């Protein structure tokens, strides 16, 4: 849900630490009545359904009255392996998530570096970079449909003015995925930019002075001072971005609904269709389980290689 999208930048670091924690004050029993009203709904409506959802992935659960659910073990997964549409959606999801995450990182890093400089117009760029954060994803999608509209949109308009004729980016098999990737980058700029900017502002100034004395140019300073200093922030935000991106739903649902010809059928859209259009709850949940395994696997691989990297540097 969008709240988690909104939420996460702050979860990049630890919450502000308490000032002078005093271990003497431990009133154990007292905390429960304060906590229960908040935690109970989370357990009932989030933790429990989640566990049940994981289980559903191993059953033949279907929508509809009087449907008896059987445990079917790995059958859903065998079916998915044989399903060409699953593989294509999986491939599209990976292309989407990896390109959006990496391009977003490059774009946001560039913007953060500029915002960290003393430039005029900085306030404007900073404000604009935050706006997507506040917009309903549905509205972001509608806005970009207007941008890409073949008849009246400015993208097609520019193409016509240059003599290339009308351009239907979202309707074309080759261009649909790149076109939605641009939207993904636009929509995710705020969290990434602000996180990186926060990281930049935390970099010790004296390191730059030392590097400048050693005769390092701007690029060398960025590569040898800024990036290594930012490493934890970069690893955190790219990991979170990857998770959010691979789980994207709203944007694509409104932009293309998976079309044309399934070319933008992201995994979550595929799972949604299986579950709520065809009523195959078990298959949809199985798809969710597959995504969890893949996400966790990739994250472990990524985090391990990043951590090794730090070890080798020092």
């Amino acid at each position, binding site marked *: *849900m*969008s*709240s*988690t999208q*909104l*939420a*996460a930048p702050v*979860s*990049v*670091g630890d*919450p*502000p630490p*308490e*000032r*002078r924690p005093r271990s003497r004050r431990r*009133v*154990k029993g007292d*905390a*429960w009545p*304060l*906590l229960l009203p*908040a*935690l109970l*709904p*989370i357990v009932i*409506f*989030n933790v429990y*359904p*989640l566990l049940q*959802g994981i289980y559903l992935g191993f059953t033949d*659960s279907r929508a509809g009255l009087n449907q008896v659910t059987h445990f079917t073990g790995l059958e859903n997964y065998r079916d998915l392996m044989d399903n060409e549409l699953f593989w294509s959606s999986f491939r599209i999801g990976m292309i989407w998530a990896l390109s959006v995450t990496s391009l977003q990182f490059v774009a946001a890093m*560039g913007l953060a570096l*500029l915002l960290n400089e003393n430039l005029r*117009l900085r306030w404007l760029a900073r404000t*604009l970079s935050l706006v*997507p954060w*506040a917009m*309903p*994803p549905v509205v972001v*999608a509608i*806005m970009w449909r207007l941008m890409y509209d073949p*008849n*009246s949109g400015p993208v097609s*308009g520019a193409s016509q*003015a240059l003599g290339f004729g009308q351009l239907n980016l979202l309707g074309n098999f080759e261009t649909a995925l790149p076109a939605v990737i641009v939207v993904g980058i636009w929509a995710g*700029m705020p969290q990434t930019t602000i*996180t990186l900017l*926060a990281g930049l502002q935390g970099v010790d100034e004296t390191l*730059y002075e030392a590097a400048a004395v050693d005769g390092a140019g701007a690029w060398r*300073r960025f590569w040898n001072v800024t990036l290594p200093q930012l490493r934890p*922030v970069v690893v*955190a935000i790219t990991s979170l971005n990857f998770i959010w991106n691979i789980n994207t739903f*709203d944007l694509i649902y*409104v932009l293309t609904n998976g079309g044309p010809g399934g070319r933008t059928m992201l*995994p979550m859209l595929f799972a*949604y269709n299986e579950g709520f259009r065809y009523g195959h709850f078990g298959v949809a*949940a199985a798809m969710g389980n597959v995504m*969890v395994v893949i*996400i*966790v696997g990739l994250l472990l691989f990524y985090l391990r290689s990043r951590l090794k990297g730090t070890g080798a540097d020092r």
Partner: protein
Amino acid sequence: MSAARISPAGRAGQYAALIAYVVFLGFPLLWLLSTAFKNSREIALGGSGLIPSSPTLSNFGDAIDRANLVHAGLNSLQVAVATTVLTVLLALPAAYGLARFKTFLRPVTLGWVLVSQVFPTILVIIPLFLILKQFELIDSLPGLTIVYVVFTMPFCLWMLMGFVANIPRDLEEAAAIDGANRLRILISIVFPLLRPGVVATALFAFISSWNEFLFALVMIQTPEKVTLPLTLSRFVGAEGQVQLGALAAGSLLATIPSLVFFALIQRRLTSGLLSGAVKG
């Protein structure tokens, strides 16, 4: 880096890049704004000017009539306000408890906030749908509110905990020495200091539920109960060339509350981030 000398050419390059960013980020917004004020003839003719040739307000009227905007807006408002009030009422004591007491629930809760990010919504949404169906809370705004409260809660807890932790304990201890009891300390010391944090958290909860789409899509079935994002997404489906202006106008109206509230809390949201992220 500002200390280093930058050549005029370097500066020019920086400004060029900054302007490119401003265009990339800002142009789609301007286009949405401009489309909302273009008349249908201009849109149908493919007029690609940024400035409407004869600005009109008719799109707003059309959007309100055809997209059921007022009704959906009231539904969204009802759900968002209820979610905000409930979330803050439940999260405030819990955040205080988590920040001030040593309990195993603290690492458990914080761990959950992070771990729950990994699980795609589809895994939760099917069983949740089945559970709520048993209680006849599907296709009902109270049902949607419950879901929003639950899914906004973790981050609100996280945010509020940070604000509680920033209140010096000494203040509370001083009051205790003066003979104030726990409730009195909470009411006359903690809550007043916490007010800005509570406002920020409340607005955040409001924005989240106002903008939310997937749960509403799955749970709401009858047209009388649709929320704004839902009605807008259906409007897209029914769109012809003529309706693009109304679509833009409706989208614009639906975004205003979030944008205004976001502007109010943006500093607090990002400064909370600043204090957290740098320590990474």
